[in-house]
């Protein structure tokens, strides 16, 4: 389990996170939702220790973050971090050389799942395919937790569907997934838990099936209520 406890972060005078708490379980998809600029990416960066927090605590499986924690987690940013002149195959080889936890078998499976070709150059990929390669490079690692920043942002509907399909497949298996998004509409059925952020705090966090069952509301209904206030 990833536990985020009362974390705060200030950039200059701007208090971006004002005490954010939530948990994300293994085997579940937790979705951080919020309109742009509410600090979703800052939270991801905080978990990955890319942005040091001012106060609060982050625990992975009950332990404070340390170097070894990052053998358990991977972060898939919203932009590809490989060199544009590389081919997909080069990028996969790079991951293989660089990470002990690289799972070539799963990566190959993802390649065919997404109908991508190894000899395609990163610079020639469409936006949708770039997002898929990005996901492939992250999912190819044998880690317990996957953090994905806006995996559905700015890509065509078919790529979105294909990426959504990954979540229901064995390729994600029983890992814990945290995704950030501002477009929840087409993935409501895929997620377990929803954490709605606004103005640096968690305004509401709930189980998606629970809110349908107990209140007869969709996730978007709840979001609408929250942002109307």
């Amino acid at each position, binding site marked *: 389990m990833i536990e985020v406890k009362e974390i705060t972060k200030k950039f200059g005078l701007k208090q971006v996170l004002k005490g954010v708490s939530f948990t994300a379980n293994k*085997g*579940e*998809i937790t979705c951080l939702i919020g309109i742009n600029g509410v600090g979703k990416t800052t939270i991801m960066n905080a978990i990955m220790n890319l942005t040091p927090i001012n106060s609060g605590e982050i625990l992975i499986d009950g332990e404070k973050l340390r170097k070894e924690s990052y053998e358990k987690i991977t972060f898939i940013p919203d932009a590809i971090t490989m060199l544009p002149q590389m081919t997909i195959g080069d990028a996969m080889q790079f991951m293989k050389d660089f990470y002990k936890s690289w799972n070539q078998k799963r990566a190959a499976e993802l390649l065919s799942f997404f109908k991508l070709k190894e000899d395609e150059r990163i610079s020639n990929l469409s936006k949708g395919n770039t997002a898929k390669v990005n996901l492939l490079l992250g999912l190819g690692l044998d880690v317990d937790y996957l953090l994905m920043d806006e995996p559905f942002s700015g890509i065509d509907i078919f790529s979105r569907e294909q990426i*959504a*399909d990954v*979540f*229901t*497949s*064995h390729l994600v298996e029983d890992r814990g997934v945290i995704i950030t998004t501002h477009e929840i509409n087409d993935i*409501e*059925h*895929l*997620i*377990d838990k929803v954490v709605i952020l606004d103005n640096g705090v968690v305004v509401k966090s709930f189980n*998606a*099936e629970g809110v*349908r*069952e107990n209140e*007869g*509301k*969709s*996730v*978007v*209904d709840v979001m609408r209520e929250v942002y109307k206030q």
Partner: protein
Amino acid sequence: MAVTFNKRDPVYVQVIRHFKEQIATGNLEAGQEIPSRRELANKLKINPNTAQRAYKEMEEEGLIFTEGNNPSKITKDEKVIGNVRDELILEAVNSFVDAIRPINVPLDEVVGLIKEKYTDKDGK
């Protein structure tokens, strides 16, 4: 197996309903093997935990059964299958009655119309 889910009912309830419809219409037969939880999640594009929940509830309701590590199967209990059919019929009739009652149509007229429409293949 394509199912359109609405966004305001629990997905697991909608999955169970889908199975009940398949059982009532005979598309799923007594004793027939059903997909694994993961396969179902993938086919219906739903969260694997939700598929798990649906199967757990169906198991408790006696709609499906699992022996050891074998794939789950549709119940062989004819009584349970009969009940599923009755339940779906009653549900459909109830929702029809709820819709027609506020219009204040005499029962005979409604029955006449039903007879007429029911045999009409287009339902128009």
